[in-house]
C-alpha cells in the first residue's frame, strides 16, 4: 500500500463521508447543512436587530430587498405579486449564493479523508460545494417548478390551468364555433398539441435549471483545480474572482427564472 498514488480527482457526483443507518451523508449535503447553519445564524442576528430606524446590517439587507423588489416589479408587473413571490425567490437566491461561495472557501474540497476503493486510494473531501452536486440543484429546480404550478392552480383555478397543458377546452369549443369559423376544426387540435408540448417544456425547465447551475459551479471547481495544478500560487486568483462572479450570477439567474415561471403560471393565458 505504501507508495501507492492517491487519486485526487473531481468526481461528477458527491461522495459519501458518513452513514446514518442506510442514509449516506454526502459531502455536498454536509456543505449545504453548513450553509443552512450560517443562514440561520444570520437570520437570528438580523431578527434581533430589527429597528424602525435601521442601522448597519439591517440597512444593507433593506437595500438588497428594495433593489430586488424593484427588479421583481419589472418581471411581475405589480408590487403585490412581487411581495408575494419575493420570499421564495429570495430564499432560492440566498441559499444558492451561499452554497456557491461556500465551494470557493479554502478547506472546502481540500480537507478530507483517504479511502481505499477497488484497491485504489481515493481522496474524499469532507466538504464539497453543495451546488456542485446534481442532487441539490435538481431538488431546488423541481421545487421551484412544482411551486410555480401550485401557485398557478391557486391563482387561476385548476380547470383553466389544466387546459394550458391538456387542452380539453379546445375540443369542447369546436361544435360551438364551427358554424362561425370552420377553420376551428384545424386550429383547435393544433392548440391541444401545443399544450402537450408545454408538458415537455415543463420537464425541460427542470432539466435546464438544474444542469445549468450544476454545470457552472462544477465547471468552476474543475477550472480552479486545473489552475491550481498548473501553479498553486497566484495563477488561480483571477479565476477565483471569476468564480465569485459566476456564483452570484448563477444564483441570480436561477432566482429570476423561478420568478419568471411563477409569474407566467399565475397569469391567465389570453388568445
Amino acid at each position: 500500500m505504501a507508495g501507492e498514488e492517491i487519486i485526487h480527482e473531481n468526481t461528477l457526483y458527491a461522495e459519501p463521508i458518513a452513514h446514518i443507518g442506510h442514509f449516506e451523508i454526502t459531502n455536498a449535503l454536509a456543505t449545504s447543512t453548513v450553509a443552512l447553519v450560517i443562514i440561520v445564524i444570520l437570520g437570528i442576528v438580523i431578527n434581533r436587530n430589527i429597528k424602525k430606524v435601521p442601522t448597519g446590517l439591517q440597512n444593507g439587507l433593506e437595500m438588497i430587498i428594495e433593489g430586488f423588489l424593484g427588479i421583481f416589479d419589472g418581471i411581475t408587473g405589480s408590487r403585490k405579486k412581487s411581495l408575494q413571490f419575493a420570499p421564495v425567490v429570495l430564499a432560492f437566491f440566498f441559499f444558492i449564493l451561499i452554497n456557491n461561495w461556500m465551494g470557493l472557501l479554502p478547506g472546502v474540497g481540500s480537507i478530507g479523508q483517504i479511502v481505499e476503493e477497488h484497491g485504489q486510494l481515493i481522496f474524499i473531501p469532507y466538504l464539497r460545494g453543495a451546488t456542485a452536486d446534481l442532487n441539490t440543484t435538481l431538488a431546488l429546480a423541481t421545487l421551484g417548478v412544482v411551486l410555480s404550478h401550485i401557485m398557478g392552480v391557486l391563482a387561476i383555478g385548476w380547470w383553466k390551468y389544466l387546459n394550458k397543458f391538456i387542452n380539453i377546452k379546445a375540443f369542447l369549443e369546436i361544435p360551438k364555433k364551427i358554424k362561425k369559423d370552420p377553420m376551428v376544426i384545424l386550429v383547435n387540435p393544433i392548440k391541444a398539441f401545443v399544450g402537450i408540448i408545454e408538458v415537455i417544456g415543463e420537464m425541460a425547465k427542470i432539466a435546464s435549471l438544474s444542469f445549468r447551475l450544476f454545470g457552472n459551479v462544477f465547471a468552476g471547481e474543475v477550472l480552479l483545480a486545473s489552475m491550481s495544478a498548473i501553479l498553486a500560487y497566484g495563477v488561480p486568483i483571477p479565476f477565483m474572482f471569476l468564480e465569485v462572479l459566476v456564483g452570484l450570477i448563477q444564483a441570480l439567474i436561477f432566482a429570476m427564472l423561478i420568478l419568471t415561471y411563477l409569474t407566467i403560471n399565475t397569469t391567465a393565458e389570453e388568445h
Partner: protein
Amino acid sequence: MESLISTFHVDIKLLVAQLVNFAIVFCVLYFFAFKPLVKVMTERTATIDKSLKDADAIEKRLALTETERDEIIVAAKKQANLIIEEADKRGEERKGELIAKAKEEIGQVINAEKAKLTSEKAETLKEIKKETAELVILTVEKLLNEKMTADKDKELIKKLVK
C-alpha cells in the same frame, strides 16, 4: 435515465434532505428576516408619508395663524384707538361738569356769606340804635333833671304836641 442516475449519483433521499435544508432556509429567511423587515419598511414608509403630510398641514396652519394674528392685531389697534378717543371725550365732559359744579358751589357759598353779612350788619345797626337811644335818654334825663321845672315841662310838652 438509468445512466443519468448512476453518473450523477442521484438519490431520492439526498434530494429530500436538500429540500429539507432549503425549507429551513426559506422559513428562517421568511419569518426572521423578510417578513419583519418588510413590515418595518412599510411602516416606515407610512410614517414618512404621514410626517410629510403633517408638515404640510402645519405649514398651512402656520400661514393661516400668521394672517389671523395680523388681523387680530389690526382690530385690537382700532379698538384701542376707539377706547382712547372715548376716554378723552369723557374726560373733557367730566372736566366741564366738575368746573361747572365747582363754580356753582362757590357761588352758593358767596351768596350765603353775603346774606349772613347783611343780617349781621342789620342786627348790629339795630343794637347800636337801641344803645344810642338809651344813652341819649340817659343823657337827656340827666340834663333835664337838674333844670327842668314844672312850667318848663309844660311848655316843652306843648311844643312837642304842636
